[in-house]
Structures are given as structure tokens and as C-alpha cells.
């Protein structure tokens, strides 16, 4: 049972290594995006010691951790399902003894592992070159909560991307909704800035949506400044969204497959 998905994982990993130029350029692009955000905040702290309750070291640590999380979470292959639906190759899954969701999740994990290994090297290089005053979190409990929140965030993004991919059962292209979600994630998920710099009412509203739990929440946990009550509340909301999105996957997949018609030879 597991060996099937282990094989999918290994093949996806090897595929990632085959298209080395593609992968390298994707990583270079991520570094460029990181540099823009990094230098905005670096400039701000040339004339201030504290802004929005963040010190230079806490915000630059946030930026680096957010970059790491983003590389892990956004490197998802779940959206490939849209292409498979549009091309008709999704029909292969219907006749093979392979779990639809588990297949894509195995591919997702392989892609994430590849990205993690690269992003760690990039961040170490950037820290060596730029020498930012980074906070090295040493509290094992906080590190454990950080890993847990990032892992749950990974699961949530997979579910969101998978749901968007399945829209291809109904619409011609699912890239538009994914583009929209990526923009919301960058802006209101904490990719560009920690969302608690926004007006309080906006932050509180956003914290009820799934987006901040993908980048902002794990990054804030890593800083070690989030009160325990907020961490518990965050995990409850995050779990709620995972549950909702997993249920939605099952419902949408069922409805989509009922609607799907294949033709040809």
C-alpha cells in the first residue's frame, strides 16, 4: 500500500532533478522576491529601532522564516490536477488502483522536500552574505509548535490548491483562481509583511480566514512572541480549516467525477 506512494514520491523527486534548469530558475526567482522584502524592512530599520512592535532582528528573522515556509508550502503540485482534467489524462486514475488524493499528495511531498533542501542552502548563503541579526530559536517547545504549524499549513495549502485544481471539472482554466489565491496569500497570508501591522480589525478578520495560517502563523510562532492563548486559538482555527477543506475535497471530487465525461480512443 505505502510502497505505491513511495514509488510516486521517488519518481516525482527524480523528475524534479531531471528539469534542473527549471528548478534552479524557480529558486533564483524566489531569492529575488525575498531580497525585495528583506531590503524594504532593512531600510526601515536604518532610522528606527522598533516599528509595529517588531525590532530589526525580529522582523528580519520573520522574513527569513517566512521565505523558508513559503518555499515549503507554495511548492505544491496539487494544481497539476487541473491540467490532467483539461487534457483528459485524469481518466487514468479512474482505472488504476491508485488513490487520487494520495497520488498528488505524494508528488507534493517530493516537491517540497526538494525545495526544502534548496531553500535551506539559499537562506544560509543569504545569512552569510547579508549578516542580518537573526534570532536562533532554541526553545524545543516553540520549535515543536513551529514544525507542527508548518506541517498543518502544508496540508492546508495542499487542500486549497487541490480544490482549486478540481475547479477544472467546471471551468476551462483553474489558473485564474490559483493566481488570485497566491496574491491573497502573499499579501494577507504574511508573505510580504506580518499581518499584525495592519489595522486591528483587519488583522482579526484575516485571522478567521485560512490564509494567515500558511505563512504568518508558523513564522510568528518561531519568533516566540505569540501568547499561548493565541497559539491555541490559531491551532483550533487551522484545524477547523483543514477539516473543512478535506471535506470539500471529497465532496468536490465526487461531484466533479460525476460530471466528468471522457471521449476519444
Amino acid at each position, binding site marked *: 500500500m505505502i510502497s505505491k506512494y513511495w514509488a510516486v514520491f521517488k519518481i516525482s523527486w527524480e523528475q524534479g532533478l531531471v528539469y534542473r*534548469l*527549471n528548478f534552479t*530558475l*524557480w529558486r*533564483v*526567482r524566489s531569492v*529575488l*522576491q525575498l*531580497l*525585495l522584502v528583506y*531590503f*524594504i524592512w*532593512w*531600510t*526601515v530599520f536604518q*532610522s*528606527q529601532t522598533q*516599528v*509595529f512592535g517588531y525590532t530589526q532582528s525580529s522582523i528580519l528573522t520573520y522574513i527569513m522564516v517566512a521565505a523558508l515556509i513559503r518555499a515549503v508550502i507554495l511548492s505544491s503540485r496539487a494544481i497539476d490536477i487541473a491540467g490532467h482534467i483539461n487534457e483528459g489524462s485524469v481518466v487514468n486514475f479512474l482505472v488504476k488502483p491508485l488513490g487520487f488524493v494520495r497520488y498528488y499528495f505524494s508528488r507534493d511531498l517530493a516537491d517540497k522536500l526538494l525545495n526544502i533542501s534548496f531553500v535551506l542552502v539559499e537562506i544560509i548563503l543569504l545569512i552569510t552574505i*547579508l549578516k542580518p541579526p537573526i534570532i536562533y530559536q532554541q526553545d524545543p517547545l516553540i520549535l515543536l509548535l513551529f514544525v507542527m504549524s508548518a506541517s498543518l499549513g502544508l496540508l492546508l495549502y495542499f487542500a486549497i490548491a487541490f480544490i482549486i485544481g478540481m475547479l477544472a471539472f467546471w*471551468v*476551462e*482554466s483553474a*489558473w*485564474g*483562481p490559483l*493566481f*488570485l489565491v497566491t*496574491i*491573497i496569500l*502573499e*499579501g*494577507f497570508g504574511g508573505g*510580504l*509583511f506580518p499581518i499584525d*501591522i*495592519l489595522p486591528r480589525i483587519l488583522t482579526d478578520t484575516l485571522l478567521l480566514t485560512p490564509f494567515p495560517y500558511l505563512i504568518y502563523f508558523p513564522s510568528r510562532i518561531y519568533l516566540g512572541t505569540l501568547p499561548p492563548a493565541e497559539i491555541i486559538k490559531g491551532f483550533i482555527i487551522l484545524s477547523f480549516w483543514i477539516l473543512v477543506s478535506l471535506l470539500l475535497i471529497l465532496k468536490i471530487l465526487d461531484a466533479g467525477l460525476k460530471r466528468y465525461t471522457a471521449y476519444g480512443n
Partner: protein
Amino acid sequence: MVTSFNKYFKVWLRFAINGFQTQLNNRFALTIFLIGKILRFAIFTLFIVILVSKTKALAGYSLDQTIFFFLSFNLIDIISQLLFREVYRFRQAVVLGTFDFYLVKPINSLYRSLMGGPDLIDFITLIPLFGAIVFYMSRLQMISLPSTVLYLGLIGVGFTIALSFHILVLALAVLTTEVDHAIMMYRDIVGMGRFPIDIYREPLRGFLTFIIPVGLMMSFPAKAFLGLLSPALIIYSIVFALFLLFFSLKIWNYSLKQYSSASS
């Protein structure tokens, strides 16, 4: 010359009408992408407003000035995307061999490859952007005929550099069939010019000004309007843009000589 211009303008209008009609066929995607682009613009603007209102200045620039830099970046970026959207689809033309048809038609193949698919979404977003730029120009209280002419001239320089980069991407596509990452790399590098180039630390700032001319493209127009650019740098940017355009055309011609068609 005028006849030739008229001919190419008519052809472009036909490309634009065809492109817009195609996009209007898929209204769902059009709406979503339009909302996405507006949202991205709004998020960046909100971020700038919140950040610079709190810190009073960013790299020495006031809130209005920082927004003006951001608007100027968007102006060059959106015009480039509006006009050169076809570059994003060029790989298909090379791989499938349809580029052969571009070469045999009585329209310049570079023109066809660059401007064959204007983007309706960018056209829609361009109109309010013009309004915002004029509004911020008057708010900055620096508006005068020389500063406006200089600003528009350097927007032209930025646009020429953008044009040159798009030509280089096309040439790369002819030589290697690689487009997607090259054009997205260009977008990401250029995206570093959303904020005044002064936010970057040396040697990165120098690199982004003189080697990869993001600063020259995106920051110089706003700087010139604010009276912060020396005549030497203005001349340098014009010479650089012309040289880059000349170089990109040479590379394009070289790539055509190497082209062997997908079917051969």
C-alpha cells in the same frame, strides 16, 4: 515611413481586437485575473501607506514620493505587458513551428512576435493608473513643463529597456526554446524596482542600477521628476537604453540566422 507606420498601426489594432475578443470569450478567467491584478496593486499600496505612515519616510522618501515611485514602476510594467504579452506565448510558436509563418508574412517577424497579442486586462488597469499618476504629480507640487517632459522622456527610456529585454527573451527562445523562466526572471528582477532603488544596500544597489538596469528603468523617471537626478545620469540612461536596444536587435538577427524551424 508614414505609410509603413499606418500599416503597422492598423495591424496592431487588428491584433488588439482579436486578442480582446478572445479574452472576452472567457469572461470568468478575465474577471479573476483582473481582480487579482487590482488586488495585488491594492495590497502593495496598502503596505506602502501603512509602513511609510508609521516610519514617516522610506530611504528618505515621503509617503507621496514612495507611492509615486510605485506608480511609475507600474506604468512601465503595465505598458510593457499590454504591448508585449505575445512574448509569453512565443515558445509555443517556436516549438510548434508556427514561427515559420511569421517569417514568410509581409509583416516584420519581430513586430509580430512582440506585439501580436495585446492584453485587455492591462489596458483596463492602465486607465486608472494614468489618473493616479497625474493626481500624485499634482500632490507632490513639483509639476512643471520641464519636470513633466523629463519624466515622460525617462519613462520612454525605461520602456526602451523593457522592449530590449523582451527582444532578448525572444532571441533566447529562438535559440533555445526557453521563454517561460527567462520572462518570469525578467519580471522578478524588474519587480525589485517597485520601491525606490535606494532601499538596497551597496553593492546590490549599484548592480541594480548599472548592470541590471532596474533602477534606471523604474526609479530614474520618478527621481528626475522630483529633481533628484543629475544631468550626467540622465544622459547615461539614454545612452544605455539605446545601446541595449541596438544590442538586443543584433542578438535577434543572430538568432534568426541560427533558426532552423521546428520541422527541420
